[in-house]
């Protein structure tokens, strides 16, 4: 395992210490927890946002803590949802009395742990509302299953709901825009290589040298199928059309686009993908309001990407463009 770490079991702890040492002006660690919050939390008079999940998706989620986005991030063990006591600690640390919105990616573990925390917080008299992000079109959507996963589209929820909270909106109103984002965002990913959970010490799976995996999850969950590796043009078109079709995107629609690296895929390749994405959307008469290219929701050192599209109305566009001051958003 080629990783720059100390003890695999200590990696999240070490990371958190490294974050606080690097950015004491931005972030603080709630003592004895794996929670990172805004240095100025709780922010008086503002609804607070908390997200989190397993670690290994950096900059998600601590990289989105800051003015205009999240108030707190709970860093679970690598690929493992954090426990309810940790989530509760985050909620308590950021609540200013205006209530807390939990932004949860739709995984069984995340949903259960965050829900347990919400109950505990409510029992302590804190107003808590949850939204569950499920943007991954690779997964079949059915009430009989766990439903779709939450992947890179989650970052749009952080951005837009965070901006609305910064505007001084009520918890209910922040929830409303969060739900609007969730309804209008879809993503699809693919991977070229695997990744290694530090404590596991070896890759979760392997993809043959001439193959790729379409529909890959961000925790190494297998995708929909394997295929022969293809040119960027074809990969981008495939992912994009699944997204476009699923969300029923129409000529004249206005969107934001995110071309996200799963970790090892360099910016060069992301921009090569965006050439196809940008051209395709243009040719279909879809107006690209803004394109985000980079590492937003990674999967350790996995090579691969995801493409997310968010349909915008006036309100969402304005909130998306609002100022935010965090490490991971640009």
């Amino acid at each position, binding site marked *: 395992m080629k990783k720059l770490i100390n003890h695999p079991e200590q990696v999240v702890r070490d990371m958190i210490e490294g974050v606080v040492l690097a950015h004491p002006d931005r972030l603080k660690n709630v003592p004895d927890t794996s929670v990172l919050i805004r240095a100025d939390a709780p922010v008086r008079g503002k609804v607070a946002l908390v997200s989190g999940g397993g670690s290994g998706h950096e900059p998600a989620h601590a990289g989105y803590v800051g003015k205009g986005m999240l108030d707190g991030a709970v860093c679970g*063990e690598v690929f493992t*949802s954090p426990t309810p006591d940790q989530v509760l600690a985050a909620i308590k640390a950021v609540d200013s009395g205006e209530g807390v919105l939990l932004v949860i990616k739709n995984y069984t573990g995340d949903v*259960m*742990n965050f829900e347990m925390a919400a109950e505990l917080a409510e029992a302590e008299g804190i107003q808590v509302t949850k939204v569950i992000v499920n943007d991954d079109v690779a*997964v079949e959507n059915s009430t009989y299953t766990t439903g779709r996963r939450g992947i890179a589209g989650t970052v749009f929820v952080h951005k837009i709901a965070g901006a609305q909270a910064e505007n001084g909106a009520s918890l209910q109103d922040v929830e409303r825009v969060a739900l609007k984002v969730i309804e209008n965002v879809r993503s699809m990913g693919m991977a070229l290589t695997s990744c290694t959970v530090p404590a596991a010490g070896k890759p*979760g799976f392997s993809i043959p040298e001439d193959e790729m995996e379409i529909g890959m*999850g961000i925790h190494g969950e297998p995708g929909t199928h394997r295929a022969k590796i293809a040119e960027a043009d074809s990969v981008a078109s495939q992912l994009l059309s699944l997204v476009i079709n699923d969300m029923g995107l129409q000529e004249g629609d206005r969107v934001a686009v995110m071309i996200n690296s799963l970790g090892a895929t360099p910016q060069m390749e992301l921009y090569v993908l965006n050439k196809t994405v940008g051209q395709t959307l243009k040719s279909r008469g879809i107006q690209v309001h803004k394109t985000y290219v980079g590492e937003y929701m990674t999967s350790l050192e996995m090579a691969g990407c995801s493409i997310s599209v968010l349909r915008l109305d006036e309100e969402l566009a304005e909130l998306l463009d609002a100022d935010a001051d965090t490490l991971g958003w640009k």
Partner: protein
Amino acid sequence: MAITIKQLVLWLETASQRILQQKSYLTELDQAIGDGDHGINLSRGFQEVTSRIQSTEYDDVGQLFNAVGSTLIQKVGGASGPIYGIAFVKGGAALKGRQEITIAEFSQFLHQGIAAIKSLGKSEEGNKTVLDVWAPVASYLTENGENTDWAKAIDHCWEHAEKTKDLKATKGRASYLGERSIGHLDPGAVSSAYLFEALFQTLADGNRAV
């Protein structure tokens, strides 16, 4: 026959050891259809369980199970933390104040734990989860009661763990695989089998010792 609190403590210690030994195996099972952390998660949690129950004297089964459950909830994370944890917390609630329990009461504990898992996990038997071991084990104990043959009970629980191979996952992370989850063991079912195997061994040894 009664199960003493000492036996229960011994059970949990044995189970913890077993899960720690099988950490890599459980993780590999999860790599195949999940995200490759089940062994790591459960080992972390059960090690905490061991150190917690070794540092306290318990004379109340309800308290013991509550300590186990809340430790698991606080230390495991993922799906298995709440699932295992809630079963001990809610299942153990009725055993408050008891220093020893009957087999029937133990089955009752399992049934209540199962109900808690189902309600939290929105899951059912047949979804390819821990339930596919917990439920048959609970039924087996209810049926056989004091006459349970521990060796056979062990076989029974492994049979059911094995059977998860044929199931298509519809809950938890493996559900993303749909049909392709068939042919793989459910990691949670296998860790549950280790848990109950440790119980039956402890009880078998205990009976022999008596």
